[in-house]
């Protein structure tokens, strides 16, 4: 007769269990999230939004400006310019995965340190509302 079969110890099995559990939860971690960066180019503020796959059903991209800064142009044409709050918003329905670019021209040029931008969307599949602050560059 040969040597007895070496059965895995409980520690090895526990490690296997841990790996399986980690693997089962990693799906959620892999699911992409919307990311955004905010740049400036002379009088233009440029918001670049990275849309993951699968994309959310719709997103709202918004730039908030300091008071007394007037928005003189947007691209694409913005959905909502709020003069009281000095903000501009775009509603994008069925966005495609990839990078979407939004820009706003201001007069006078906005103080970049006082400008902020954010993205609002609901997680795909009827998930919760998610707010992403754009990273300044």
């Amino acid at each position, binding site marked *: 007769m040969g040597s007895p079969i070496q059965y895995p110890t409980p520690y090895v*099995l526990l490690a296997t269990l841990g790996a*399986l559990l980690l693997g*089962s*939860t990693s799906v959620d971690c892999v699911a992409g999230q919307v990311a955004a960066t905010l740049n400036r180019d002379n009088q233009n503020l440029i918001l670049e939004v990275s849309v993951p796959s699968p994309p959310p*059903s719709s997103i*709202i991209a918004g730039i908030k400006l300091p008071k007394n800064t007037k928005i003189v142009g947007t691209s694409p044409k913005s959905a909502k310019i709020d003069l009281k709050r000095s903000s501009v918003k775009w*509603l994008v329905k069925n966005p495609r995965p990839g990078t979407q670019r939004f820009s706003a021209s201001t007069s006078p040029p906005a103080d970049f340190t006082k400008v902020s931008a954010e993205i609002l969307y609901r997680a795909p599949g009827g998930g919760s509302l998610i707010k992403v602050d754009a990273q300044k560059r």
Partner: protein
Amino acid sequence: MVKIDGTKVRAIREQKGLTQLYVATVVEVTTDTVSRWENKRYPTIKKENGLRLAEALEVELSEILDAAAGVASTENDASESADQTHPSQDGNSAEGIFATDPWYHRPGHLSIFVVIAALVGGVWAALHYLSPEASISETTVTRVVSPHFIPGKPLPVFLKIANPSPEAVSIILKEEVPDDSTFTAAFPSSSGIIAGTVKWLTKVTGSELFYYTITTDPSFNGTLSFAGSVRGSNGSQPAEILGDVSTRTSLHHWADIDGDNRISDEEILRVYDLVANETPSALDLDLLEEMWLGEGYQWQPEQRQFSILP
């Protein structure tokens, strides 16, 4: 066993506008079998199927029985045997597996078997209970309806269907149109509306959204109550539709969930999340978007329209 009257079955089915496919799906037999029942080729069926047939036709079992026969013998049972699946009766296989001294009967190995079994069970439990999606073993339907609506204006009722299986499953979805309301449209098109109940017989894969719209008389003042059920093709009993069960009249747009007379970012995203793949004209989303663009809105009861605050 019961003996049914195929002529009555066909008459009731046609009177209610039901297809043989619908009946076959509810009873879980083939359309050929339903056809044979109606043609009296196989008048004797299992009582269980008789009850399901009666349920599909929405009548009592007694209404479809052959009055002259009543309870029948087991002859002519061939009609159903073709549709039933029977587990194999292979008693020898079990003996074969355990014929020799199993390894876990050997001294010292039982504890390892127990440890492995516990771990496998633990992994299974973790995968099935820690993950919300995985914990759903059957197709579930959740109703989403605004807590309020304006009488006389279309109100959408959303039905979110979740099928945890990777494969398409057949479901029968029934939703009762609330009293004091009128059904106006459904997406996808319903399989029929019978006695105030909207029905869909369809296959679903993953998560899908159905919706229908209702209206009330402009003078209506009160609460609408919802009820519905979903039945899968796995032989389970109909399950109640989860989620919202009522809505009441108010002066707020149905999308204005918090009733603050403005459509917020969250509220418009919620709407577009629900109708992501469709542009239902009945819901007038252009008007809703205008409301979102504005500072707010007011319902003008006399003009029966919204005024948008710029």
